[in-house]
């Protein structure tokens, strides 16, 4: 174990490299990569490393970067890539395919606004494009979490009871380019945590066809299997946390990270780094005697519905902060979680920090003033903070 001062992009890449080397005794590692701001540094780091039984292929597009990952994973290797924003949008078709083949490919996304008009700053709208495609989705709030999440994502995605691709998201620039201390385990520790991957459907000796046509009945059965496996992933993640803690001596973050939420009357719900700001705001308001708490949704897919229902139970007011806009609807997170609150709870959606707006504590305090004045839930609000 060593402590390194690195960016979150670097942390994701380092984590992937350790995972790559951990598969050297099996079928190795192969990644297809392509640059895009602000994920570029992650792929550059991958390209700078010598990996025993590993090959990082410089693709000609994100679509083909994922194509290469699909081929590698279908041939039984561990696979990883990174992209964001329009790169992710360009990749979507092959992301659908990766999930359909049930291949445990892990992808790091430095969340960035979709364009045009071009905008390189943080927004969750890109990774949320993949919401319904059968990818696990985990959102991190600091560099250590990014590092740990990538390792856990491999373990979770490659579990024979799960077998599906995983997204590890971090806010572009806010996290991706911020340097902070990260505990980096030794290769030997990672080897113990992450055993060689075995992809049962891989192209081997037997003549079989992966991803061929099927009739509606077979498709429904495949959807059911995928759905059930995804639902089971939350429980498996708890096992992975235990094993992680045993080997690395620290526990990776829970699917739902609560902060002073238990006795709170008002909750701030968010994803990514907004959750860190929310915790500071909670501290300030607690000092003023207000019973406020925060919940950070770290695991977005599968959606930890039971956990959220328990946390939301009996709360008076809930502010759901979205760093995204589903145009013509409201915040995506709000749309997903509002149903878990009691009918009497006032659940108000604030889309804040959209397209990279810098959300500071005073902005959140203003939103909470608005929330406390409300007698009932209103229409979702897009809040300008820039």
């Amino acid at each position, binding site marked *: 174990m060593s402590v390194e001062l690195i960016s979150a992009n670097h942390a994701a890449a380092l984590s992937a490299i350790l995972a790559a080397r951990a598969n050297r005794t099996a079928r190795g590692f192969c990644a297809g990569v392509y640059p895009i701001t602000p994920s570029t540094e992650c792929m550059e780091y991958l390209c700078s490393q010598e990996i025993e039984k590993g090959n990082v292929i410089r693709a000609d597009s994100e679509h083909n970067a994922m194509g290469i990952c699909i*081929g590698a994973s279908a*041939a039984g290797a561990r696979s990883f890539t990174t992209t964001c924003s329009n790169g992710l949008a360009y990749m979507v078709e092959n992301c659908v395919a990766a999930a359909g083949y049930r291949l445990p490919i892990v992808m790091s996304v430095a969340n960035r606004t979709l364009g045009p008009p071009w905008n390189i700053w943080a927004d969750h709208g890109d990774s949320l494009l993949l919401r319904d495609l059968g990818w696990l989705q985990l959102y991190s709030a600091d560099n250590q979490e990014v590092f740990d999440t990538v390792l856990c994502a491999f373990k979770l995605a490659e579990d024979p009871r799960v077998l599906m691709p995983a997204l590890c998201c971090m806010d572009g620039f806010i996290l991706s380019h911020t340097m902070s201390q990260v505990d980096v385990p030794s290769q030997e520790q990672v080897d113990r945590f992450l055993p060689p991957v075995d992809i049962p459907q891989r192209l081997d000796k037997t003549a079989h066809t992966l*991803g061929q046509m*099927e009739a509606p009945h077979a498709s429904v059965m495949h959807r059911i299997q995928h759905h059930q496996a995804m639902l089971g992933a939350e429980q498996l993640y708890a096992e992975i946390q235990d094993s992680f803690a045993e080997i690395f001596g620290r526990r990776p973050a829970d699917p739902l990270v609560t902060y002073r939420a238990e006795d709170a009357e008002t909750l701030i719900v968010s994803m990514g780094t907004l959750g860190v700001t929310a915790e500071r705001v909670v501290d300030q308001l607690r000092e003023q005697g207000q019973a406020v708490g925060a919940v950070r949704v770290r695991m977005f897919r599968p959606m930890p519905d039971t956990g959220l229902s328990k946390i939301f139970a009996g709360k008076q007011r809930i502010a759901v902060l979205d760093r995204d806009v589903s145009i013509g609807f409201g915040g995506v997170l709000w749309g997903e979680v509002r149903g878990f609150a009691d009918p009497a709870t006032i659940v108000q959606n604030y889309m804040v920090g959209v397209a990279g707006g810098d959300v500071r504590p005073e902005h959140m305090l203003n939103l909470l003033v608005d929330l406390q004045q409300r007698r009932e839930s209103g229409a979702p609000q897009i809040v300008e903070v820039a």
Partner: protein
Amino acid sequence: MIKEPALNGMAYTEQDRRDPLLRPGNSNCGGCGMSNLMQMLRRATGERELKMVVPACCAAVTSGSFPESVFGIPTIMSTFASAASVATGVAAVAQLNAERTRVICLAGDGGTYDIGMGTLSAAAERNEDILYLCYDNEIYGNTGGQRSSATPAGAATTSTPRGKQEIKKDIIGIMAAHRIPYAASISLAHSDDTLRKLQFALDARGFRFLHVLSPCPTGWKSEPAMGIELVRLAVRSGLFPVFEVFDGERYVINVEPEFSNEALMMYLSLQRRFRNTGVTEEILRPSIERYWNYLRLMSGRIVPAKRN
């Protein structure tokens, strides 16, 4: 060498791989050129180990529905534009594990000339260890026969009902410009030549590209039994040059055409796709001559073939 031009690989011989690559019960149309290609590939493959990538194309439908598999080798169905990138990943992992398996792509003209062109170009530029087989029926077959950039001038398709105006894209020229180790066109009417090229390409390393003119009775509106004869007419008339290019430099013409007007006329008249579009031998002849002049220049042959 096996000589059975009339059968064109349809008979089983001792050279053939035991398990067919294209198993009985597949849903290919009668007279499909891709069926012939797969039979020839079965013979060329022998006991070599293969893995296959098939993008969206007729072969993606041929494979039958889950859980049966029509292909006698491990196969992955990729998205339309991704055959060469998925094959890149499969081949890279085979290389990492020092496996002898050969990775092949089986793609139609739409997935090669059009939507998959960028992917193909990138894999060729990286000189990935892939054998890319393009079976070219000169239309989008699965969707009912629309034009692709492989459709020849003068052919009617459902999206060019009065006949396509533009000439066919020069795919071997494009691939040769990547300086890949091997690029060749294959005539299914010349089985010895086909077999030799398939075997050479299977054993060669780096990116190999084979272009196969694949008769399509459904799209060409021709008699299923005439497919191989149509290919022969396309070769005889000079419309479909049979040649190979080594390292993007050394051009070798494999079959010397007679440039017969009669063959060209028969080729056009035996397919209803050329009827009512106004295309004639006289209209096609200049572009055929232009291409052959280019081929003679590249292959260093000064003496042109005999003309009728």
